[in-house]
């Protein structure tokens, strides 16, 4: 059972990673297209800054689940390392449950914002108006994935090392 839940969590994390990777690739493609159009043809897509913003948001939110599952999230572990061995997993689970509640609450607020935008038909103010519920949906997708992976992770923890970047 635990093994199956762990596999589901890994699969969801992998899905989030692929979406984040696609968003990074799309950012590169959009900016390069804009540079070619601007310098070679004297024209512009006019939406690059706005679209890159939405894609960047997608990278961050969709990347949360794989980052959490691979143990890449930044945390202060010097003090936890000093705690008695028996207390450490309890502390970890307690902190994960609080993060899970936070992610759930944030997901609810983003969902409400999405529904409001959809109901009112709100569009972005750019040259090519985009329904604002679309970028909200990308953030919501990432938060839901993150919350699910966290919930599964409490039951079936990943065997990953904590890593950080300087």
């Amino acid at each position: 059972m635990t093994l199956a839940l762990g596999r589901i969590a890994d699969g969801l994390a992998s899905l989030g990673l692929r979406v984040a990777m696609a968003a990074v690739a799309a950012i590169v493609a959009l900016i390069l297209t804009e540079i070619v159009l601007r310098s070679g043809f004297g024209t512009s897509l006019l939406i690059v800054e706005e679209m890159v913003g939405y894609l960047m948001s997608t990278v961050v939110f969709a990347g949360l689940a794989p980052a959490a599952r691979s143990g890449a999230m930044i945390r202060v572990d010097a003090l936890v390392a000093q705690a008695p061995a028996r207390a450490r997993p309890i502390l970890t689970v307690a902190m994960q449950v609080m993060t899970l509640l936070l992610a759930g609450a944030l997901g609810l607020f983003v969902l409400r914002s999405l529904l409001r935008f959809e109901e009112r038909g709100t569009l972005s103010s750019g040259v090519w108006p985009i329904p604002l519920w679309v970028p909200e949906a990308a953030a919501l997708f990432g938060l839901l994935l993150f919350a699910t992976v966290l919930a599964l992770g409490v039951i079936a923890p990943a065997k990953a090392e904590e890593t950080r970047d300087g």
Partner: protein
Amino acid sequence: MDLSLIIPLLALLVFLAGGMWIFSALLITAILLLTVSAGLDPERAGILGSTVLVRASRSWELSAIPLFLFMGELLLRGGTAARLFTGLVPVVGRLPGGLLHINVVGCTLFAAVSGSSTATTATVGRVSLPQLDQMGYPRMLAIGSLAGAGSFGLLIPPSIAMIIYGVLSETSVARLFAAGLVPGLVVAALYSLYVAFRHPRASDHSGTWRDTLGLLPVAGLVALVLGAIYLGFASPTEAAAVGVAGALALIALEGRLNRAVIYDSLAAAARLTAVLGAVVIAASVLASAAGMVALPRSFAAWVTGFELSAGMLLLALAVFYIVLGLFLDGVSILVLTLPVVLPVVQAAGIDLVWFGVFLVLMIEMGLMTPPVGFNLFVLQSISGEPVLRIAKAALPFFVIMGVAVLLFTLFPQIVLFLPDLLYN
């Protein structure tokens, strides 16, 4: 201090000490500040928090991070690091200090494609340390120079830490990139002088200049990316996208481009972007919440009450950051302190671009100090030496960096002349 402010700040300390991920600790603290301190009901606090969070994640400036990471990963997986050692042998071999300079020069060059100190230390260390060991160079001097120079990833542009500072302090990332270059080169020169002084012998290995020529395409790519930013042809994000295209073209021409290289590079860049981006957007929510309860203004007024000169304030901040560096990593220090420290710095009339370089140097010093100096752990995994022994080897380089900070404080033009020249 008001009890309603103490509760959220105390909670933040408990969360951090309990090992909670930094981004969730920042977000929960922000919600506590909005509800307990500002008196908002949870509903309004949630709406405000989630709105700021999503808006902050759509930053154009922030989008330079995945692109610079992608470029660095591509070059790393395309075999740049392996060529670094052989390519630098003819350049530095005849100097006093011999091939130990490869650690300093190699880290300086790799920092210009990587943007991350961990990647810089690990990549250069893995290639150079076994070779230097084999050639009989003093092991602890080699490890110490790697611990010191490995931190250049944060200072020498393109620097992820500079992008994060720029986003949080609303300072031009291009100016910060220009400001970081000369101090980075000055610290590198000081490190090289120290290495030459400690090990005056030149190397018996001369290498061939053909190997050095192999480094030119990567050096050209770095010059193209940074040149486009410095000369105002492109924003950091646009230059980073050109850098990605250039890195892809380079490794394709060398016949090393395949699906695995692209996939792994893209995956590493996306994952690390999420980690860093989550912390930065959570810090934006905390900064907004702190602003609502006038926490930065109160802190600035409290510090101003001591009537410190700018020099004394910087000294106090240096001590503060070095102590924080003992317990926190670089990104955490940036996001946790900037909302309250920036108003104080601004009130003291300190240039925000100069302060960005000062702050990054302080973080770099933190990377060399135990128990949380991350470069020490990277080197431990490469060399197998105990952390405290590595920290002792890094101590002279820590002191040299401290001297460099003093130099930049006494002569701020060392930091500011290039951004002033390019952008004024």
